[in-house]
């Protein structure tokens, strides 16, 4: 078994390799392999994997790339993520990708899909619309058609047909992946000091640009390490972070929160990798139908999903209680309409349930964390004082 710090170093490098070297190498080592980039939040990666493709999650540039051209494409009042993505597209970062998928989350991502179309980046560029109707015969059928369009796009490139066997196999691998990630969260719920939030973040984010088989092995190793009694417990409070599902907070921000005395016991940073709650059935003759069902019935709390019949405020409170959290930190990217428009309601639910919270906004390239650290520190102190 590899030593934990080596694994963590490896993941840290991979998580922020904005040239996606590992994925590109994977593609170039065999003919017929394809690389498909997808943006936050969720995409059923199984359908790419099943046709000899690698889904690569593109989560923006964070604070790792200077934005020069991207700023000429976006006004100052639009979140930061798309300008970093355009910068990557105009540089050579996204060369060798065969296609790009823009899951429906907001109008910025939607219009970004059009910008990729205009720039003719990749062989296909698809806005991927999720049904907001959760009836199997209505929204389910629509969702299936959306997936089939992409299956068709990929077929046109490598002529590999999607078979139920292959798709079941991919589902199995991603079920394992989700289960293993959940296992990390479960261990951290009890022993958050065994793996820092930043390391957890790197381990999960690294999985966005490597084969799932390999990622599963890495997580298994991480789990064996953190199943041991390692690290040192601090007198920290336990928080859930909500609102960071798309543009990612800079790592420095995550670190600052922990250093200020808050163990992050759940979050929505890499929500797409944890989207389906529980397993997808991997033993049926219609695995595509199973992916449809899982989306309709096993999606998590998300600003991207219409929730009038299943309000997310209550679900967030449940999550905080399940994780035994002392409070919630609402941390959203500036100008992020989906996250920020949900916030008042989520806060109200917290008020009703007596859950403490603080709120702040960030850009993926924010470099100053002093204020946030102070805010989180005060939050932690006040909770310790009253609990």
């Amino acid at each position: 078994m590899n030593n934990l710090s080596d694994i963590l170093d490896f993941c840290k490098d991979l998580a922020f390799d904005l040239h996606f070297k590992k994925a590109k190498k994977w593609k170039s080592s065999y003919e017929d392999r394809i690389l498909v980039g997808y943006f936050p939040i969720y995409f059923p990666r199984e359908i790419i994997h099943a046709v000899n493709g690698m889904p690569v999650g593109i989560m923006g540039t964070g604070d790792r790339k200077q934005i020069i051209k991207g700023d000429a494409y976006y006004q100052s009042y639009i979140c930061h993520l798309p300008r970093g993505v355009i910068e990557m597209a105009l540089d050579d970062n996204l060369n060798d990708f065969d296609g790009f998928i823009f899951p429906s989350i907001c109008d910025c991502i939607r219009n970004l899909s059009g910008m990729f179309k205009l720039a003719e980046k990749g062989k296909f560029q698809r806005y991927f619309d999720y049904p907001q109707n959760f009836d199997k015969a209505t929204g389910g059928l629509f969702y299936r058609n959306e997936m089939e369009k992409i299956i068709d796009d990929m077929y046109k490139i490598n002529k590999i047909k999607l078979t139920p066997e292959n798709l079941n196999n991919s589902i199995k691998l991603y079920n394992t992946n989700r289960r293993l990630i959940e296992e990390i969260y479960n261990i951290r719920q009890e022993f958050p000091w065994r793996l820092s939030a930043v390391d957890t973040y790197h381990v999960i984010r690294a999985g966005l640009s490597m084969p799932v088989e390999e990622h599963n092995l890495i997580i298994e190793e991480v789990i064996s390490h953190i199943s041991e009694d390692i690290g040192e417990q601090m007198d920290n409070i336990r928080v859930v972070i909500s609102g960071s599902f798309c543009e990612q907070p800079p790592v420095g921000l995550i670190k600052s929160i922990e250093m200020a005395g808050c163990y992050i016991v759940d979050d929505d940073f890499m929500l797409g990798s944890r989207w389906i709650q529980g397993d997808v059935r991997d033993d049926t003759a219609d695995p595509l139908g199973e992916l449809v069902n899982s989306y309709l019935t096993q999606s998590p709390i998300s600003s991207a999903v219409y929730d009038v019949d299943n309000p997310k405020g209550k679900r967030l409170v449940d999550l905080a209680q399940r994780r035994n959290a002392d409070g919630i930190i609402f941390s959203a990217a500036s100008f992020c309409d989906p996250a920020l428009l949900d916030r008042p309601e989520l806060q109200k639910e917290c008020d009703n349930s007596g859950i403490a919270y603080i709120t702040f906004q960030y850009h993926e390239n924010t470099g100053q964390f002093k204020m946030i650290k102070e805010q989180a520190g005060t939050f932690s102190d006040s909770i310790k004082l009253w609990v």
Partner: protein
Amino acid sequence: MKTEQQEVIKEKSMLIQKDMLSNLFKELSNTHQTGKKVVYTFVPGNLTELILAFDMLPVYPEINALQSGMRKKSASYIREAEKIGFSEDVCTYVKCDIGMMLNGNVGPTGEKLPPPDLLLLSYTGCFTFMKWFENLARLYPGVPVAMLHTPYQEDGCITQDQIDYMVKQLKEEVIPKMEMVSGKKFDMERLSKMMINSAESEDLLVKILETAKNKPSPIDAYFAGVYYIGPMFTAFRGTDEAVGYYTELNNEIQERLSLGLGPITPEGELKEEKFRLVVEGPPNWTNFREFWKIFYDMGAVIVASSYTKVGGVYDLGFRHDYREPLESLSKYCMGCYTNMNLPQRVNLLADYVKDYRADGFLINSIKSCNSFSAGQLMIMREIEQKMEVPVGFIESDLVDPRYFSYSNIKNRLESFFQMLEQRKVIMAHEN
């Protein structure tokens, strides 16, 4: 800033419009007596005919918000919403509407608007709509919400699968909820009949908008387009009154055209058309008249605009079709401007520049509207390259007066008009 404002010229059509609107608001304020049911819904992808076919009354929160902006009420409404946790960064229409509701829901005419009996979430062309009505659903607990998810024209076209998806939602989600709320059975024939009126109004609307292809243009297709040509469409489409209104308006405009007259503006008739522009993006409402006046003073006429197409791009040929009412409602929703992908938008705008013989292309970018603003700078580059016309870019907000800077906008527009002037001189030399 104070401007000297003269008496606004009112044509007959404007008076008809005023009456129609005030009757609607009167009806809305009387619902507690008449028992009429009220449906809150959005302009893009509106199902006006369907609402009216159930004898219910539509309320459009966006229109209330813009009216609040024009009546200088929006700043305080926005502040109210921010007080309950809405960020400064988000769509100001949402905040203005929620602030108005928190302030007693007094509508544009000063009468209290009734609460909704149904929230019809026609989720068309803007992600924020969904968030907006999720919020309203909590502010009006117990009021049913009918969600109609309109698929985006991702591929630049409307597919049969998408139509089927929408028709199914209409049949299984929207109509049953309307039946439940109104207590009436759905009457397909009635809906179908309304669509004959709709198509007639649509023909007239296109005729009116296309008069701007002439030089001089008898209309301003942006300011007047959103002020008195377009709005009637949303609330009354499908009715005899709408046909009457558009017939009158069309007559007036055809007459102006035959007399070679320019557009009517609040400052009076524009006597000399110096520049013809295509504008992309919504207008600013808080300083609407001042904003319009800058163009008037420069002799600039907007000959085509995208914002007048959020409620339907009829000039591309779509008409509500009485032979397939539900299918055509679906196609209508999917065809709205903000539901078109970026390459489609670029092509449409480029065609406008060509067909309406525009001298330049201008974007008014709205701080809080991602549906329009994200990608606009790329649209601008594409139009510049494709059409080789001067392009301009200004920024403001819909209803948040904090983001309307008169001097900034004026300076930028002055440089833009200088550019247009120079180009005219160069082109005159070349010819």
